[in-house]
């Protein structure tokens, strides 16, 4: 199983670099994983997206619908792509410690 190591911390991740155990997420995870997703700095807007994803995940066990994420955070999809270059399902979910969605997505 791959291990992602940064600043002396080690995380078990999958082949795409997603956290294996979403339960161990903390804000440090988001900070540590940011550079792997081309995010240089986590602004309050980034945190708004990450926290929304995280809370939705805790309630529903999965990421929210992309359209819902946009509407509830007030960001357009292209703005989310600007913040998280690999997009909501990959970049943003990875920083929020969510598993990668699979299927016809």
């Amino acid at each position: 199983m791959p291990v992602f190591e940064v600043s002396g911390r080690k995380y078990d991740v999958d082949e795409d670099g997603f956290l294996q155990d979403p339960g161990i997420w903390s804000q440090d995870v988001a900070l540590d994983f940011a550079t792997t997703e081309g995010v240089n700095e986590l602004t309050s807007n980034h945190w708004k997206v990450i926290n929304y994803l995280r809370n939705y995940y805790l309630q529903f066990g999965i990421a929210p619908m992309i359209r819902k994420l946009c509407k509830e955070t007030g960001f357009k999809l292209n703005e989310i792509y600007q913040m998280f270059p690999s997009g909501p399902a990959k970049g943003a979910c990875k920083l929020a410690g969510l598993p990668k969605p699979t299927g016809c997505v």
Partner: protein
Amino acid sequence: MANPKPEELTQIDYQPGRKDWMNPAVEFRKGVFCYSAAPKNLRYLGLPNPREWQPFDKDWKLPADWKRTILEGMRERLRKFRSFRLFMDICVRCGACADKCHFYIGSGDPKNMPVLRAELIRSVYRRYFTTAGRVLGRLAGARELTEDVLKEWFYYFYQCTECRRCSVFCPYGIDTAEVTMIVRELLNLVGCNINWVVEPAANCFRTGNHLGIQPHGFKDSIDFAVDELEEITGIRVEAPINRKGAEILFVVPSADYFATPHYFTLLGYLMLLHEAGLDYTFSAYASEGGNFGLFQSHEMMKRLNAKIYAEARRLGVKWILGGECGHMWRVIHQYMDTLNGPADFLEVPVSPVTGTRFEHARSTKMVHICEFTSDLIRHGKLRLDPSRNNRWNVTFHDSCNPARAMGLLEEPRYILRNVCKNFHEMPENTIREQTFCCGSGAGLGTDENFEMRMRGGLPRANAVKYVRDKFGVNLVACVCAIDKATLPTLFEYWVPGMEVAGVHELVGNALLMKGERERTGDLRGEPFQEKEASTHA
């Protein structure tokens, strides 16, 4: 490693290399294969040999008796599937299929010629199951089954999207997708499968759908869509879930209530079904149209397909309506009847609005929403304003399975011609039954497989580029969730600026609902264009 640039990928060498084709060595380099299935997903489904491994590992941690398992598996399937034995025996290597595969066109790799791809297992079939092969070996085109051959199978049979374009051109009607299905099934026996196929199947059992959305999450998403639709139209539609006694069970791919642009198609469905006054229900248990079992084994396909019919029985519906899902329709039209059918406890579907009896669905009892909608339009039951789609200049990508596996060729076009004013076809050898695959079907739509997807999607993207340059097309409509997920990436790479939408998103834009508020924008929130369209379909 960064992804290769388009100008690098178009340097395709069609001159076969000097290597003997019987040499099975392959290189699992990043970009041309998919990751292995996670052991937890194999365990969940009760599949053999769960373990940590990756295709690029030297040691695949195969079971000690893997060779016997594969050969026994072949023997069993040669007895069980006459088609498999036939396809192993009858190919005359005429080569009609050779340049019809999108992966061959996009890669130049001769083993992506369907004839040679199938030869990778035919050679093993000859060695162990024919007298000539047993006696003459190489001379008769026979090969030993070795670990390298197994790896080669994995490499090339997960570079086939089971799109069946090659089969259209085979004078013997060899269905190469069925060869791929059998080989993947054999690989499954020793635990060599990919996560993008196995995890959705495991999720489908665990929560009802590929994405792993639980019932309360499903309801949350549908409720959100109902709320948003009310904001757009002023009308509150009903979208019941698990409602016993409804006339119709409606089954959609789970991406429709998760991803974008799929979601706008969901809005279109909800508007249409409200306007038609349909007595229907969603189901949280059958909250998935897709069937990733098709991409791993007949057994898994059967198990997943059974969920839809079990739920139809439990809810007491009369028949089933299916959404814009691709491979679901291959399972329904070509396998369901013998897997789990006939569904005699249901009634032959009849449109409650028009009275049309869908005779072709008298065994499966399942109707495609494009069939349902085109019938409504044909009978003048919908009020449509196609000018609401004026910002789009549309072409239609025939999704492989609805086109080739169920013959759904006219209905989506009939709908499109009624809901938008600008519609242009791609060249005829790239549409209808000759349609080119998105390059990411059959479970291959992963990020790690990026290069192969772009190669495989090149012929489709090229045809799209043609209509963009010639007619100014800016939207590709389709009826498959994998298309909606993967075509945007493909077009961003080859034809930047091209958008993708479901047919029923465009229906939703054009549909005039009784009592709607004055609409100013489409389902994506973009304002309607008032100007008269310049060209007509």
